[in-house]
């Protein structure tokens, strides 16, 4: 409570005077209102660069944003950070009331979801590496669907022979799954610790890997419509960690 109270709206600013104040308190407060208005007015995350360009000279963006974030933390609408962008989003615990008519969430096939997870945790990652992890070739309608959704993008090229193209996730991906940054991916530290993200198989790779032709093999998963629930992908339940 005390913490929240510190950042109350309409609070006299004298309370913050012990902090390094670079701006006149009135200007500081104005800067806060501007940042709030800018982010609140947009449905898309707004970049810090952009916000900063609109603030009075001398305003401390970092302090302003973290103050606003704390201020909204307990409210029905929260201020969230997405990489170096900011956005207002309804509080997750209110999802039961705030149902819009159009359910905009994209349904992903099991294969697409798996590829998305691999890209997120292993990025930058090449297609060959994705296929190595999954043990099957990537079918059409997997990577392109993820790119179309705006969650996955071509990142660049690996500096190895052949210079293969690498894939990574986007800011929209973070926004979609409520992540501030990639390091917030669930369990990523444990996976790294267990060596499961290194891509380096302890021994050599004699294990058959999928042939490299581009045509789909018939055994590629056509589950697109299959219910994720049936596959246990929507019931996380007790199943924590590995």
């Amino acid at each position, binding site marked *: 409570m005390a913490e929240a109270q510190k950042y109350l709206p309409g609070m006299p600013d004298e309370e913050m005077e012990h902090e390094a104040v670079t701006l006149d308190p009135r200007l500081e407060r104005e800067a806060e209102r501007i940042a709030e208005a800018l982010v609140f007015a947009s449905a898309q995350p707004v970049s810090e660069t952009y916000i900063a360009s609109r603030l009075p000279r001398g305003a401390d963006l970092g302090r302003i944003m973290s103050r606003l974030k704390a201020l909204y933390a307990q409210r029905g609408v929260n201020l969230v950070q997405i990489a170096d962008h900011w956005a207002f989003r309804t509080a997750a615990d209110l999802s039961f009331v705030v149902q819009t008519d159009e359910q905009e969430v994209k349904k992903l096939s099991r294969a697409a979801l798996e590829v998305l997870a691999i890209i997120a945790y292993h990025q930058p990652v090449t297609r060959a590496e994705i296929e190595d992890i999954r043990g099957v070739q990537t079918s059409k309608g997997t990577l392109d669907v993820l790119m179309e959704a705006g969650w996955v993008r071509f990142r660049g090229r690996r500096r190895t022979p052949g210079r293969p193209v690498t894939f990574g996730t986007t800011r929209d991906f973070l926004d979609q799954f409520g992540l501030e940054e990639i390091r917030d991916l669930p369990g990523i530290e444990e996976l790294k610790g267990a060596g499961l993200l290194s891509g380096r198989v302890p*021994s050599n790779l004699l294990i058959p890997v999928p042939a490299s032709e581009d045509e789909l093999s018939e055994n590629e998963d056509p589950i697109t419509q299959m219910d994720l629930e049936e596959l246990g992908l929507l019931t996380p339940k007790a199943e924590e960690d590995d």
Partner: protein
Amino acid sequence: MEPLWQEEAADRGLHEEALVVDLAGFEGPLDLLLHLARSQRVDLSRISVLALAEQYIAFIERVRSIRIELAADYLVMAAWLAYLKSRLLLPQQAKDEGPSGEEMASALAFRLKRLEAMRDAATRLVNRNRLGRDVFPRGAPEHIVAEKRSGYDASLYDLLTAYASLRQRQAITQVTIEKRHVWSLSDARLILARMIGSLDDWTALDHFLLRYMTSPKERATAIASSFAASLEMVREGRLEIRQEGAFAPIYLRRGPKPIDAATLAEMEAARG
């Protein structure tokens, strides 16, 4: 965790009793192996790779015995596992090259663990609070932030899809143009009709088609269409045809009712 995967096994059509096997539910050999490994009901780092190899091979044999066609990947994996099994069972020779059976087994275990870890990660990811399902943006945004100096918006994906589909479209158009080189029956008939005036004696079909064959690629279609057209014209009495034996040259000459100039003109006109 167990009920979850049992359920999945049922969905995937892996019923022991009924011997109903639906491999379409599996995403390749590694997926099948992971499934089998789970049925050992131990932590993946403690699975018996030997037992797993045996299970897999037995499974593949059973599937083949009921004559289900298997993708080559499954057979390659079976062969590899058979090899692995032999390496695990035979004592390591001093001069052996390559990895030991244990190394191969641990590599396999690693891959299974990694795949399982990614499956779990996918599950956790999809169950997070999703934008548009659990969490919502401002419904009535008051501005769209134009951060790019250009004032235009486009993603690399947009650019590449536009390019790929354009190039594909154009390439296909070119293929269609190529198809015009196929001789239709009426093409062939017209050409034969034109030639008939000069055919007092037997002439090989190949010989008088030569002048129409601009490229060797057209040879097959020209001969096929002319031959079919010539049969029709023989029936009408416009042509006579003769061949000494199978694969021998085909000879043509004017028939009892040759095409007169007026009919030819009509045919030319009809073809535009």
